[in-house]
């Protein structure tokens, strides 16, 4: 039994080491505080137990002491705060050149699609030593994408993208949990993260791909007629989308936003909300007409036509022939 009785989770990402280091530091600091208090309690309780003829000695208090035991913990707390904040900042800032995987959560499964086109359910294959960025949304309620061995977790919300990233450090199979309660089969919304050596990963990637996600997106872009207005020149009735992604966009109402995944998504589903300066509100909403997977593909496509040359390999020019646009069987009805 004891052989199967681990007390420490596996460390399998770059983040895990950072989190564990802080955790150990906290264990030591709070352990010492606990010990200090418990020793005082036990010592006082024993030393000053009531004895006949011995009265308690009244002590009013001591402002210097109060200040000491407020300030010292405060300073310690500030160290913990700052350390925690640094770790968090790293956790929440995906590296720019990370491999992208789109995640769609639904009651009660995880649907994952690699930018290169592989689709998976409740399983994610990733290479060791490469940054992977998950761009996640939910079809229904709030879920949470949690990989204990990587020490990362991020809620997955309906109606927007949230992002998390990791770099796996050790080949193996690790738990994937849904950590935000989501209904009947919440505890069944689990899966595996399979971390593979680069060579094995390449082999895995070469099997069963349907072509890059951006190519699927380009096809949808054409089918939905997006290209009629969003032309590759300045003559279109909608903005030219080449080179837009990741850049600031001037809005009609005077604000400026960055064209990130959430902005592109919002423009597809609620075009009137943040209209680009100089364009008429003529675009219809695609809410209800495209599935979460199709939105993901469109976002991937719009990204690909903004990418610089180095990354352009995922763009349409390399699209495999015979791209299928259909989603998997039970996935695509939109909210």
């Amino acid at each position, binding site marked *: 039994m004891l052989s199967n009785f681990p007390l420490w989770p596996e460390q399998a990402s770059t983040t895990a080491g950072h989190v564990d280091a802080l955790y150990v530091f906290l264990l030591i600091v709070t352990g010492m505080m606990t010990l200090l208090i418990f020793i005082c309690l036990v010592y006082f309780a024993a030393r000053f137990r009531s*004895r006949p003829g011995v009265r308690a000695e009244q002590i009013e208090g001591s402002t210097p002491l109060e200040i000491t035991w407020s300030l010292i913990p*405060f300073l310690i707390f500030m160290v913990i705060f700052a350390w925690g904040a640094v770790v968090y900042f790293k956790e929440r800032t995906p590296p720019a050149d990370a491999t992208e995987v789109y995640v769609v959560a639904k009651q009660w499964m995880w649907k994952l699609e690699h930018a290169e086109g592989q689709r998976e359910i409740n399983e994610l294959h990733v290479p060791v030593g490469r940054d992977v960025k998950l761009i996640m949304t939910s079809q229904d309620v709030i879920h949470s994408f949690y990989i204990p061995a990587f020490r990362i977790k991020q809620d997955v919300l309906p109606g927007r993208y949230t992002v998390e990233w990791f770099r796996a450090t050790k080949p193996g199979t690790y738990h994937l949990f849904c950590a935000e309660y989501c209904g009947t089969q919440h505890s069944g919304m689990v899966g595996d993260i399979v971390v593979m050596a680069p060579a094995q990963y390449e082999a895995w990637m070469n099997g069963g791909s349907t072509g890059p996600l951006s190519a699927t997106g380009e096809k949808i872009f054409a089918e939905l007629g997006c290209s009629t207005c969003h032309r590759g020149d300045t003559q279109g009735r909608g903005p030219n989308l080449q080179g837009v992604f990741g850049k600031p966009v001037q809005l009609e109402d005077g604000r400026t936003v960055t064209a990130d995944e959430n902005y592109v998504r919002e423009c597809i589903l609620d075009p009137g909300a943040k209209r680009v300066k100089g364009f008429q509100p003529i675009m219809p909403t695609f809410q209800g007409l495209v599935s979460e997977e199709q939105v993901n593909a469109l976002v991937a496509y719009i990204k690909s036509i903004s990418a610089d040359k180095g990354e352009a390999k995922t763009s349409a020019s390399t699209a495999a022939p015979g791209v299928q646009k259909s989603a998997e069987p039970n996935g695509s009805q939109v909210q």
Partner: protein
Amino acid sequence: MPTPTPQPERENYLNKHYGVWSWLLTTDHKRIALLYLVSITFFFFIGGFFALLIRLELLTPAGDLVQADTYNKLFTMHGMVMVFFFLIPSIPAVLGNFLVPLMIGAKDLAFPRINLLSWYLYIIGGAMMLHCMLTGGVDTGWTFYAPFATNFTNTKIVEAALAIFVAGFSSILTGLNFVVTIHRMRAPGMTWSRLPLFIWAHYATSIIQLLGTPVIAVTIVLVAAERALHLGIFDPKLGGDPLLFQHLFWFYSHPAVYIMILPAMGVVTEIIACFSRKRIFGYSFVAFSSIAIAVFGFLVWAHHMFVAGMSVYAALVFSLLSYAVAIPSAIKVFNWTATLYKGSIHYDAPMLYAFGFLGLFTIGGLTGLFLAALGIDVHVTDTYFVVAHFHYIMVGGAVMGYLGGMHFWWPKISGKLYPEGWARLAALIVFIGFNLTFFPQFLLGYMGMPRRYYDYSHMPEFQVLNVLSTAGATVLGVGYLLPMLYFLWSMRYGKPAPDNPWNAAGLEWKTSSPPTTFNFEVEPLVTWEAYNYEDLDASH
């Protein structure tokens, strides 16, 4: 402790009137306290029963005892019953109701009929909650997260929400009554600096009840409106924002934790002073730390949302403020510890509970530092680490304080002495059972076991710790049953209690046990400072 000879049966609040109506229509704060005592004990054992079923289900990795939906309802109803129908009313509505007027030398609370109304609102809310549970229950978790609660579950959300809405008004009215009473009804000479720290704690608690509870009421109405009328508030499908729900919910529900723990801190302060025979160390720091907790407690709600999709910068601010709220709690622990120094310490049952409180609250508080650290919270939030942490505060802290207070004031409340040996044994069993139940959950949480999992057959490596936890829960259950049994026993067979069995300071001990209906024969005139144990012990 010296025990003066008990007096023969005198007229008191218990024997002045008889009959059901003399209880149901009473405006005596002491009788209303007993009405609350019976009602919250009822809900405590219902909530405890749910907890026991949860622990039994988790004994094995597979989901084999109940259905998944049943399990989800069990933890939901466990949370709702324990939070809204036990913990929030526990100390304020029972011990606070009984003691606030006695401690400040008043005849009753400022609004005796509103006090009775608050109990009826609690009972109406409780009856609605019972009806809801008996006719299907709710499966959202006590947190009601949208859009699951508003548009996905098909359980009885609106009814449960209304039950909590009604019970919330009971809490508001109690808070209102305390604030007015403490301001307006203090006996001559009972200045703010002479108030027992129990009163300061309840004053701080009442401020939170008054300012916080309306927010959960509004939130609940919005949930019901979205669910029943499909107004788009929280569900993005309807144009709403699910994070708005979480902000509103935690704006009340985080301060609500302080509604539970502050009164327990007040109780423990009284017990430690009495059983070390000392004025509390740093009186004004302990008093103002209660107010500081109430104020800062309103500024940390979003630390429940570090992975919810909130801005990184907002997370930084809320993490920082969470450390700020930890300081006044630390100040309290240090002052309690310092009070023991050079005391004359007695180990009666209330003091054992107070020691238990100190140990468990310290662990609960310090593990809060882990959760406030952003980088660690990402890993452990929504796991058993959080479950363990808040049980250390809400059960290890609040319930230990409640039980300690019940033992300390039982002679005053009932006029009878409880059996000391049994009480010490129960304190020990509760302490051991509690740690055995919840300490393994810290380990489970850091290993990554998510909370609210009905079935963990995907990760059978978690079983050993779960078995330990379930074993502990059984021990804890015994520990909780014991006091109920011997308190009931003592009402009939217990020795009559003298007016001041502990030779304790405080006006409540200067009147008879049990007190008369209007508490004091003559309005007291206070000429001494709080915790004048030196004078009390000198006269013996």
